């Protein structure tokens, strides 16, 4: 059976979630592999969430926030960016490929960009193959 990536995505309510909704109202089509969790701000995303996602079997994690300067809460997206870079280092140590975690800025009017992002990230993960974290943890347990 062909590998279908499972991707967990965190979308901030004001920009990226709205952008994803716009892709919907514009009836744009994209890959069905992205599963969305809505949060108020990308600044809410903490490393625990990302690791939990991989632990539960996600092959990729996508975080989307407002463009720098446009955050509804002024600076939350910058905080997310800082955390993302630190987390990348941590993932490397854990043996998870850095390409499996992506941070992208999507604004409320960028429906097309969101759809394209969903497709391209799905393909990236498809190329990387399934993430073995869940398997390995369960073997050890």
């Amino acid at each position, binding site marked *: 059976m062909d590998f279908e990536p499972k991707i967990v995505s965190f979308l901030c309510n004001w920009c990226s*979630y709205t952008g*994803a*909704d716009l892709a919907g109202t514009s*009836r744009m089509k994209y890959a069905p592999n992205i599963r969305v969790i809505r949060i*108020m701000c990308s600044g809410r995303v903490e490393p625990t969430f990302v690791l939990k996602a991989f632990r539960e079997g996600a092959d990729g994690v996508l975080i989307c926030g407002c463009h720098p300067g446009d955050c509804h809460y002024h600076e*939350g997206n910058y*905080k997310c960016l800082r955390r993302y870079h630190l987390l990348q280092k941590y993932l490397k140590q854990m043996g998870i490929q850095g390409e499996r975690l992506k941070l992208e800025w999507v*604004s409320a009017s960028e429906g097309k960009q969101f759809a394209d992002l969903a497709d391209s990230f799905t393909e990236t993960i498809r190329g990387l193959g399934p993430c073995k974290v869940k398997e390995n943890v369960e073997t050890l347990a």
Partner: protein
Amino acid sequence: MEEQRIGVYLCWCGTNIAKMVDVESIAEEVGKLPNVVIAKNYKYMCSDPGQELIVNDIKEHNLNRVVVSACSPRIHELTFRKALENAGLNPYLFEMANIREQVSWVHTDRTAATRKARQLVKAAINRVVFHEPLDKRSVDINPATLIIGGGVSGLSAALEIGEAGKKVFIVEKNSKLGGHTADIDLTYPYMYSAGQMLDSMVQRANDNPNIEIFLESEVDEIFGYVGNFESKVKDKNGKETELNFGNVIVATGLKPFDAGKIDNYGYGKLPNVVTSVEFEKMLKTGNILTKEGKEPKNVAIIHCVGSRNPDYHEYCSRICCMVAMKFANQIKSALPDSNVYELYADMRAFGKGCEEFYSLSSSKNILFLMFDQKEGLPLIKKAGSGDNCDMIIEMEEKLSGENIEVPADMVILMVGMEAQDNAKDIAHQVGVSMCGNDFYIEKHPKLDPVATTTDGVYIVGGCQAPKDITDSVSQARAAAARILASIAYGSVEVEVTTASVNEDVCCGCQTCIKVCPYTAISFDEEKNVSVVNEVLCKGCGTCGSTCPTGAIKCKHFTDVQILSQIEGLMTLEEV
């Protein structure tokens, strides 16, 4: 924890969802999950019978949690929360799964779409278990209103509010009120004088004791939240005034496109090529004359200058076609022997009386010549010395397919409208978002076109999108009405999904204080813990994710809720 009694509802949304997602099978499956007492599917959950279904089930089956999977929560979360309230349940014991905008409308494979929808529903069910009841919070409203911009939009709003007896501050960067409308002679389609309309408005504003006007002034950053804003106004001499107000109306307007950017039209090089703005000023003086002081025999009016063209602005500036019609009529009345040519790409005569105005104009022997922007813009050249006109316009006329020459003694460029140069600065000061063209974004393009996602801040007139006086005034008065209604109500609800600190777990590191954009967290020196001011807190959650001990709970977006949601997304794989 109390016994969980969850009601799950899957909406068909007519065929919008049901066409791509097998909602009936999902309802059946999730109905078997523990804690799920009811699992139903229905055609239109947001309708009255749909909501009654929830209300009745809550009462009948003693439900204490509800999940609705339907459209985006940005559309109907409030609707269903109200339904819960009607049934006597706290509105926050509710979760929505978006299986329309983010599933049925964007995927093409029914199996894959149904699988994804199933996971989203499971995630919502997982999450809602951990929802806690939250109480509403209201704050008083300062009845004063700040209006940034004293053009026709700002003035209309100011008069509406001021004449209702409430205080208004108008901050205008120029030395007089009226904005672009002050430079207009007559308005289409009935040819009323703009000056007369505006003069009476300015008079009323000046005479009204409730309206305080700051000319040649600008607003500094605005702090606070709806009902309780504060800011400083600085005038040209540097004098600062502190203002407190409950609502803001942004009416900063727009500016005309710089025609010099288009080489073909020779603006700035050929003296008798003028913009619509300049021509309007000429009409106000009462004389239509070329730079050489003669009455023009041939006048060409070119539409879509800087609009509907991916090289400049892709959008349509809405009013230029009608203004061009107006010009043609005015030129024909003032100079009956002149020849008027309308070089247009499309004729957009959208409003009341406008199509009739266009029919009337076409009967006045005005020559309409069509060009296609994709196939090349008209080219304006200086005529030869033997020619009996000042300029020649070469263009490919689309309706005939011919390359023609149009003689012209004066050319009027109908320049498009774009956002102000300082639109970004004002957006940041006020807290509104901008779209790709630097216009401000409304809360909802159809259902809430004057509000923004920042409560208490309204956008009206040209700063939201190009529009004419009618629409600007409508929006201004709409925003004013909303503000007056909220002032009449006396209080406004503020965010309840705020953060709170568990004092027992807080280690006093103060990291949260450093990251809060609203300085809503303070440090209690005595107890050595952080304290959140829940009125200032906007619920972004940045502090919660920064806290190293997990002491901060971001209500309604707690760690436990989100982690269980992630779990839910990954289960039910093989079903």
